């Protein structure tokens, strides 16, 4: 078996009054698309940002993140910069704030390449238009001279993806890449990521709150809740036979177009209560106050992540 591109072990991210990522571990294999699903406060974005060391100043980070065997947490600022954008790159939710509004799109993509040693202007210009063409932007040579505000939201997210893959990274981290987009544009961006993965073998770590987006794209699925991984397995299995009560509840609580009987006479199975406050440590399983299968042991000690599930009870779901 080949080496993982990314290997995270015992990762914790803490702020002065709260631990937001707590003992997270998983691998991403070359060419694999791994989805991390969770709600706000689950720690999914902080986990993703840790890989590029893009955390707020106040955050302290512990554990191990290995990229192709090299310890990211031990890298010097210079080594980090050499890695960012070249070997590992990131696409964020909001393509408007990811671009500099006063620079042309093409120049910003070119800059991403010059920073990592490519210098010949003509080759760069050609590469910029071929990248824009590859993400489905018509008339790429002319569009490279446009400013971010002249692009629609979907086009900006395509251009951002073009910039992210400009240097042929081994790993692309996409943090809610389609959340701000319309459903037809979302589908195009998902297709774009699928193509990138198939054509160039780029591994993708997809962070999202939308469990359907994961089904569309990912081979593996990691479910996070309150800073913990609660379930980890093949996307197929997790989505059709979830084993953790939270994953099951999350799948039940969304209205779905693939279920024939759904309408104003049916009720959604809602998850009661709300996610725990990270500033107020909770004994036992982090999901126990909201779990329909809670038992006494769940309130006392936290279950370990065993066989891809973090649950004492393991009810038949």
């Amino acid at each position, binding site marked *: 078996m080949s080496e993982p591109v990314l290997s995270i072990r015992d990762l914790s991210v803490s702020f002065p009054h709260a631990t937001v990522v707590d003992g997270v571990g998983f691998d991403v294999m070359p060419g694999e698309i791994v989805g991390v699903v969770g*709600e*706000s406060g689950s720690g999914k974005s902080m986990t993703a940002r840790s890989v590029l060391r893009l955390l707020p100043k106040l955050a302290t980070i512990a554990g191990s993140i290995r990229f192709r065997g090299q310890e990211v947490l031990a890298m010097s600022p210079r080594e980090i910069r050499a890695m960012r954008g070249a070997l590992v790159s990131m696409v964020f939710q909001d393509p408007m704030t990811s671009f500099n509004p006063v620079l042309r799109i093409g120049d910003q993509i070119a800059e991403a390449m010059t920073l990592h040693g490519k210098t010949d202007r003509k080759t760069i210009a050609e590469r910029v238009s071929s990248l824009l063409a590859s993400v489905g932007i018509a008339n790429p040579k002319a569009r490279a001279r446009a400013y971010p505000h002249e692009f629609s*939201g979907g086009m900006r997210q395509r251009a951002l993806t073009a910039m992210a893959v400009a240097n042929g990274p081994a790993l692309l981290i996409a943090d809610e890449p389609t959340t701000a987009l*319309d*459903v*037809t544009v*979302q*589908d195009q961006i*998902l297709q774009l990521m699928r193509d990138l993965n198939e054509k160039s073998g780029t591994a993708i770590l997809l962070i999202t*709150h*939308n*469990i*359907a*987006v*994961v*089904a*569309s794209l990912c081979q593996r699925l990691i479910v996070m809740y309150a800073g913990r991984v609660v379930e980890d397995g093949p*996307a*197929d299995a997790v*989505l*059709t036979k979830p084993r953790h009560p939270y994953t099951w*509840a*999350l*799948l039940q*609580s*969304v*209205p*779905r*177009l*693939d279920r024939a009987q*759904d*309408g*104003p006479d*049916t*009720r*959604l*199975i*809602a*998850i*009661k209560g*709300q*996610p725990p406050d990270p500033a107020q440590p909770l004994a036992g399983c982090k999901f126990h106050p*909201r779990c329909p299968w809670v038992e006494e042991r769940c309130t006392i000690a936290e279950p370990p992540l065993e066989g891809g599930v973090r649950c004492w009870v393991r009810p038949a779901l």
Partner: protein
Amino acid sequence: MRPLVKVRHVTKQFARNKAVDDVSFEIAAGETLGLVGESGSGKSTLGRVVVGLLPATRGETIVDGQDVALLRGSARKALWRHAQMVFQDPYSSLNPRMTVRDALAEPLRNFGIARGAEADRLIRETLDACGLSTTAMARYPKEFSGGQRQRIGIARALIVRPNFIVADEPVSALDVSIQAQIINLLQDLKTGFGLTYLFIAHDLAVIRHVSNRVAVMYRGKLVETAPASALYATPRHPYTQLLLRSVPVPDPRAEALRRQSVKGAEAVNPEAGDAGCPFAARCPKAQFPTCSATAPLLTEKAANHQAACHFA
């Protein structure tokens, strides 16, 4: 059934941009009409015009027998007693300096419904109906989570006991596990208080779940209206078909089938111009010059099922 809301040929123009373009529909008493469309389709603007928060450029909106545009002063206030709005963002639709009690007492006072002890009784009753504890009364919006804040926003609309509520993306800013709670709450309130909803959302699955009837909006126009079951089972307009095929589903096998079906659901037609059908430029079924010459009107294609397409 008696129509509670009648919207006739409503146009709302901002400068040169027609955000809403000659839209007509009715909502029967006790019905939920789902209004779905992508960003910029004009669905929020339409919602605001219907409830009288924005004046229409042309056309009329009749709520409970009264023309919203003609109402002034106290008559308009009286309308708002019957037609209320729930907003997407409970963070910005509540005054951060008002306690929950003050926020809920204000409309009671404004409409001359109740004061003092009677107001407090109504506030407690409404908070309870919205799943909030009465201890919430003395607290400020910032002390609540997003889901609870949306419950406060709903309570504020409900406190005057309206019969019609326009809910504009009421769950899209909320976490997935909280969305279901709020959707269920809105359904319970509909039954409990006999409400009629115009439910605006971009999420097609949410719209199907809450709606009796659905209207699809594209670039300011209604392109299709039908009972929810018919619209989702047999969409007539190519735009509705594209939208429905674009929604990923959480079942991997169903998702693989969907990905197959979405191929060819969208086209690039450079011959489409500004005249004609608004969807012509993206429509896989477009035939030129028909589709670039005249804009199709919303017409009956099957029982209660209307679409604005030359070829649907």
